[in-house]
């Protein structure tokens, strides 16, 4: 990293006026902004039309990624201190897990969110089919994932997302669309003097001579345009909104709204303001409302869960917030009924809502059955089992026992015996550790 890059990164960290940053990097030498709370990595789409084409960087796949990159950067810039990095290279170098591993080895871990979008394309005559993959995590080793942590008594119930790795259904674009992608990409790669395509401009990469890494930050935006300043001290306006003719690329690839919603979630978690909550929620709603979202049930469920989590935090985890979020969590469970994580999160939020009512009492049998149902769906996931064990522990505790009703009645001996049985459970050949993992960014304690 040279001095200018250090200076830029430092300014990204320190200056509240700098909103977002962009970068173009090679997959085999990836780079990122170390302090950004949200980083979106956009990988070139791989052309799977033939075995041969899948081995090399595809021009159309790279251009498509370029459009997604610029559009995402523009869309997420209101979240502040965010970065979108476009990666280039051969498919063998551009495997997301491999690139993330390299970044983790090279940069200090932090609690920022990483969203990775990659995909494959397939050509048939004049038609192109695009399929996207999205995954997200914190920039940490063995990230246990995003979770809600809700205090019940002296313990914490935990709910997790149904998945943080998602496959979207194929989308179709025509030869005409392809031409428009290329044409739009060529227009978006120009840095203009003004936010006007008729104003003088030059190609973005020309601003980075002597093989300097293309790296810039956003200082302003206006409509579909964003203003950039490069590490070489140059500045100008770039057209950011990706369009296919008169239609936004996001309409054709609704997963872009999902990506922006996830980036928004991370942006909101780093600075939970109501405006950020609204923006992230709007992107997720936009994805959910797209006509083809029901062909991606897992992503649809995760989108609803994320909206529920945002709603809880943006409304200070009030009763009303839980009432609204619980509906979303229940909807997610309905969409992916076999997901242990989805049903467990719905149970956790619903049980907590009852618990936080002063004088509210939980039906013990009904409560533990909710968790057992999730355990049955995926016995290998210990989250629901740990939640169930926590309820048993609470019921044994004289301080909390009055908060439960027992039908059928359960003696202390029964509770102790069953608690002990749970502690003796083995998963994968070893005795289960009935303790929740700690998220990289803890869930704020409800008031």
């Amino acid at each position: 990293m040279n001095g200018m890059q250090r200076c830029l990164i430092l300014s990204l960290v320190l200056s509240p006026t700098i909103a977002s940053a962009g970068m173009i990097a090679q997959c085999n030498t990836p780079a990122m902004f170390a302090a950004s709370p949200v980083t979106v990595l956009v990988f070139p789409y791989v052309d799977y039309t033939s075995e041969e084409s899948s081995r090399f960087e595809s021009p159309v796949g790279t251009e498509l990624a370029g459009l997604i990159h610029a559009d995402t950067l523009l869309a997420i810039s209101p979240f502040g201190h965010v970065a979108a990095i476009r990666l280039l290279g051969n498919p063998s170098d551009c495997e997301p897990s491999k690139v993330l591993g390299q970044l983790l080895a090279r940069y200090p871990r932090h609690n920022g969110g990483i969203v990775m979008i990659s995909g494959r394309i397939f050509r048939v005559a004049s038609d192109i089919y695009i399929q996207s993959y999205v995954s997200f995590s914190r920039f940490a080793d063995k990230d246990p994932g995003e979770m809600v942590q809700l205090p019940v008594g002296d313990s914490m119930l935990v709910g997790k997302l149904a998945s943080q790795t998602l496959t979207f259904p194929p989308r179709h674009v025509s030869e005409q669309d392809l031409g428009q992608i290329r044409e739009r990409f060529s227009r978006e790669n120009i840095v203009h003097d003004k936010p006007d395509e008729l104003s003088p401009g030059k190609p973005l990469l020309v601003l980075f001579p002597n093989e300097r890494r293309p790296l810039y930050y956003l200082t302003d935006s206006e409509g579909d345009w964003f203003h950039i300043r490069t590490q070489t001290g140059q500045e100008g306006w770039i057209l950011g909104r990706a369009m296919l003719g008169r239609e936004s690329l996001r309409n054709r690839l609704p997963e872009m709204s999902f990506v922006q919603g996830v980036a928004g979630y991370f942006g909101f978690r780093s600075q939970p303001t109501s405006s950020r909550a609204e923006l992230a929620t709007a992107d997720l709603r936009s994805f959910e409302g797209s006509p083809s979202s029901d062909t991606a049930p897992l992503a649809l469920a995760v989108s609803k869960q994320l909206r529920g989590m945002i709603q809880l935090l943006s409304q200070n985890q009030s009763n009303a917030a839980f009432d609204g979020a619980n509906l979303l969590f229940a909807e997610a469970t309905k969409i992916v009924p076999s997901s242990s994580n989805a049903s467990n999160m719905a149970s956790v939020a619903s049980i907590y809502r009852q618990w936080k009512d002063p004088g509210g009492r939980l039906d013990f049998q009904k409560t533990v059955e909710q968790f057992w149902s999730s355990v049955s769906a995926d016995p290998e996931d210990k989250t629901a089992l740990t939640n169930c064990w926590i309820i048993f522990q609470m019921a044994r505790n004289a301080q909390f026992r009055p908060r439960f009703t027992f039908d059928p009645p359960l003696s202390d001996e029964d509770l102790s015996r069953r608690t002990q049985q749970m502690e003796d459970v083995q998963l994968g050949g070893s005795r289960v550790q009935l303790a929740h993992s700690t998220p990289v960014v803890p869930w704020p304690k409800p008031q």
Partner: protein
Amino acid sequence: MSLFRYLPRLRFLGCAVLICFVKAGGQEPQLCTQINLVTGYKIVLDDIKFSSGSASEQDKQLMNLLNFQLRSRLESFDDEATVRYHLIRCNGRLPEGEASFPPLTMTGLVNRDVVLEIWGEIFGPAQGTQRVFLNYVMMPLSSGSVSPFLQRTYTPKAGSSPDEIVEWLANLNELSAYARIARAVRLLALKGPTGYDSAKADFETASSDLHRAFAPNPTASQKELLTFVSKRKCEVLQDARTNSEYKGPLRLLPDTILKRECTGGNL
């Protein structure tokens, strides 16, 4: 009676053909002859062919798309970083139906942890629709009470727009269900009670996907498969309670959950 016998007989090209092995999630092609060297569960994706006399541009488009989509689906349906399947792409192989899987062949494939094999045929437009036959063989089911062979007929509208084809392809969620069922059965056969947890999770997801795929009117063979999955799920749950070798959480499930899951409540 199997529908396979109605399919035109096509030459089995199998052994001599160079076929590709592609590691799930990766792009490194390998020779299919290495199938014996690859450990772990495998899914074999054979050819999708035209029926005789049908090879219009539209058919070709559909075939190419099907190949793409099947491969995409099979490579990515495990959403965990730890990939548990290997996809074997067998170009040029087109089994003749059940006849291509005599008991010895089936046993050999099962022993090599091949859990699923898929191939298909496309028939030209008739009465406003195209017909696509996809054939699934869930190898480990060959020793059970249900047929390991399942044929699905799909009828995308003739002259469908690319967008309509894409929508149709996107709904092929059942692919992963077949692989999960086969994997669960194999796991149970290999590991017994120590495989209960993983098998139960597979059965659960598969059951949910298949109910959605077969709705609203499952055929007799589809009902048979759904019943088989429910039954195996229930057997796992019931044995988990009493089998001393099993130490997982299923042994503690309350009666109410067990009754709910075991349709018929045969406790």
